[in-house]
């Protein structure tokens, strides 16, 4: 995918539907996983991988000049595997081995476990630091790639995120772009109730970041924002994407306790119908 191709919005929406179905399939087969956290960020990753934003070569996954994508919220691994497989990094069927014995498709991403998996994540808070390391490495190697890091919202409670935020601004890492999947829920409940993050925009600005907000399910709007922040110089950017946890499946959207569990076969059938009809 190059930056010159103009994405067909209808095709992107179809891709998002396909990926949501993949996530349903892989987590239902595994009998565990985090489908709702994966669905909330699906449209963001479709914009990134299929909306002519990320520069990559699926047949040459470690191409040195590639843009990096780091899934810092590692529990959205099913989403990552689906996107990578649909982008051509590995056969689509590989996803169905998620969490199975003797399979490289790990429950949370392990660096290099599959082509395109850039970092080990799952203990939350670590991805942005690793992304900054790629930025500094790119400078030394005189390569102009960009580094995209998908952060979870609950993850922003971790101190390391803010250590990395401070350092990224210090190093003027303008090719570091964080995207926040702001679905407003963490494992045990609403973020505002469990450990409030607001005022979030002011926090990122105070750490020296350029901040944009977007509807995290409006694929053209996400593409537009990501293109806009690419042009900024001298400071890192974060796009705060307002999302709905479980997006696409009504009864999951309505129940945050789906965070860390797969759907039952009956629920999965209902979800499949909804996704196919949406």
């Amino acid at each position, binding site marked *: 995918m190059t930056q010159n191709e103009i994405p067909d919005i209808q095709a992107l929406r179809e891709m998002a539907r396909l990926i949501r179905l993949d996530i349903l399939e892989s987590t239902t087969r595994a009998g565990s996983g985090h489908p709702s956290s994966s669905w909330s960020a699906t449209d963001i990753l479709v914009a990134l991988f299929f909306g002519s934003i990320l520069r990559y070569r699926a047949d040459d996954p470690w191409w*040195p000049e590639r843009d990096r994508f780091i899934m810092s919220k590692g529990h959205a691994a099913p989403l990552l595997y689906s996107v990578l497989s649909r982008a051509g990094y590995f056969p689509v069927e590989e996803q169905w081995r998620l969490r199975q014995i003797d399979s490289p498709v790990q429950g949370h991403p*392990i*660096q*290099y476990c599959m082509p395109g998996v*850039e*970092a*080990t*994540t*799952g*203990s939350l*808070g*670590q991805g*942005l*630091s*690793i*992304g*900054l*390391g*790629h*930025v*500094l*490495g*790119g400078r*030394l*190697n005189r390569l102009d790639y960009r580094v995209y890091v998908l952060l979870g919202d609950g993850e922003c409670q971790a*101190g*390391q995120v803010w*250590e*990395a935020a*401070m*350092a990224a601004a*210090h190093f003027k890492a303008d090719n570091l772009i964080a995207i926040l999947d702001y679905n407003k829920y963490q494992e045990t409940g609403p973020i505002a109730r469990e450990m409030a993050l607001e005022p979030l925009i002011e926090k990122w600005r105070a750490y020296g970041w350029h901040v944009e907000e977007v509807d995290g399910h409006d694929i053209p709007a996400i593409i537009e924002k990501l293109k806009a922040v690419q042009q900024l110089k001298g400071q890192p950017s974060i796009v705060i994407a307002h999302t709905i946890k479980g997006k696409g499946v009504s009864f999951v959207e309505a129940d945050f306790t789906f965070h860390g569990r797969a759907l039952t076969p009956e629920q999965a059938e209902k979800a499949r119908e909804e996704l196919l009809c949406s």
Partner: protein
Amino acid sequence: MQLGQKAGLKPSKPMRDIFGEALLELARNNPKVVVLDGDLGNSTKAETVRQNFPERFFNLGIAESNLVGVGAGLASCGFIPFIVSFSSFLLCNAYDQIRLAIALSNINAKVVGSHGGITLGKDGPTQMGIEDLALVGGLPTFVILVPSDPTIMRKAVQAAAEHVGPVFLRSSRVAMPYIYPEDNCPFEIGKANVVREGDDVTIIGCGIMVATALDAAAMLAEEGIEARVVDMHTLRPMDVETIVAAARETGAIVTAEEHLLQGGMGSNIARVVAAHCPVPMRFVGLNDTYVESADPGDLLKKYHLTADDIAIAAREAVKAKVRV
């Protein structure tokens, strides 16, 4: 306090100075080497690289978690990061990052824990790395190096860079005497060095305790006990062959480390001895205790890490041997 005096070893500079020189030489010869500092470069002596190759030196400030993550990212770009800070700060503040981003990812990053052990002295127990070897020992994929003299420190820094994969290297504030010739010494990761021959008992040490063991061996020789001394410069992979040979040939083993006995070198050697060739063992190290701010020599004496302590342990081990 002068380590190695009884054994007639030649004194040298503080190990951290040797480390700084070795790191600079490495950076000069290998453009892929980058140094990540947790704002202690002047103490760890990693600043030698800052002065000479500023573009390959990054001070990430007092934020060890981020320090390790950034290092992991640089390693993923093909660089060889040396992540340098105090051993206690790195392993205690950033253990999870070292575990996920380096050990579990099995990437080519080097973690240097400076100021290992209690001989940093007067700054006290908050700064001392007395659990570091147990902590890093809990991370599969890590090679663990604990140099005992200036020559082997230079070799170890070079070997750490050449080994593809995670390496932990322990550095120290204290001066260690020359055990080996100044220009060269045998050094192979995972192959311990026998630095003194003997058949009555084996003393296995790492770091400063190798010179101390040689002092103890000199004392024991006066009593007619010939101690073999092994420099266990690599704690993982552990040299099983040398340990088993020592157990078979000398019939008693003493281990000596500037670290907690719980989870340290001695406990791992005991596992090897128990499985392959059980013989009487004694253990010199810190026994389930924190220490205090004081002169390093006073600390070694008070917490029983001297040549006298090793000699006492060796006599006991010899006495416990089964007579045939």
